[in-house]
């Protein structure tokens, strides 16, 4: 059973750990930009639903890409 994270929880985490980040949905992924860096997160099953579950591995990649892992782990379960 894959570990998943609510996308809304991811956004709440980014509001705290990556203030000023910019995110926009595209055809296949959310494109998230912060501090001159870019990371992508899947839209989730069935496309652009409001609060899909995202496999947590994508979030691990994102928080490490942005250098915000320690902050993120205080808010989300990333294991």
């Amino acid at each position, binding site marked *: *059973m*894959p*570990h998943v994270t609510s996308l809304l929880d991811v956004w709440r985490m980014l509001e705290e750990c990556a203030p000023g980040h910019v995110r*926009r949905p*595209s*055809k*296949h*992924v959310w*494109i998230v930009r912060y501090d001159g*860096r*870019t*990371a*992508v997160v899947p839209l989730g099953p069935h496309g652009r639903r409001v609060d899909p579950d995202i*496999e947590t*591995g*994508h979030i*691990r*990649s*994102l928080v*490490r*890409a942005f*250098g915000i*892992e320690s902050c993120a782990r205080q808010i989300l379960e990333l*294991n």
Partner: protein
Amino acid sequence: MAETNAPVTSPDVLPAALPLMFTYRDMVMGDGFLAEVQAINGRALCVTEPNGEVWMYGVNPGGMAASGVDLESAHAAFRRAFSEVLVDFMLESRSFAEFERTVSAFFEQTNAAFEADWLRAVDVVRAQNVTIGLLPKMSAEAARAIRVASHAVPRAIDNIPQAQAQIAA
């Protein structure tokens, strides 16, 4: 006496972390042009998580990941995701130059945390002579490059995608 440095061949069981390098070629259609993207010696770390999921975490590019039930499916998912990200970058680009800048920056962006894990995994590959089936090896120090070229007209060879992966050693 056991042979020293005998290869650890694991066709079915992956090491906990396997350092990979990949070379991909994609053709992406823009408004009035074709863009050829060659990602040469990109880096990714293939991790078998405690729950059995196999994840490919991008090191270069450092901002993406994909998963599967095994190495082959995880790499296929990563390859597909990379192509999709290129399309999404093209959709937001207003010119070839902008697309080139976006793609180049994305590929060159190193995920430092996973890079540290990748380098440690390279040390393990070298120390234990890790092999995975027929997956070839590549020097971990091989030069990395991203080439984005604009083409005015399509070519027959553009029909042939490219995807190569090697163990970084």
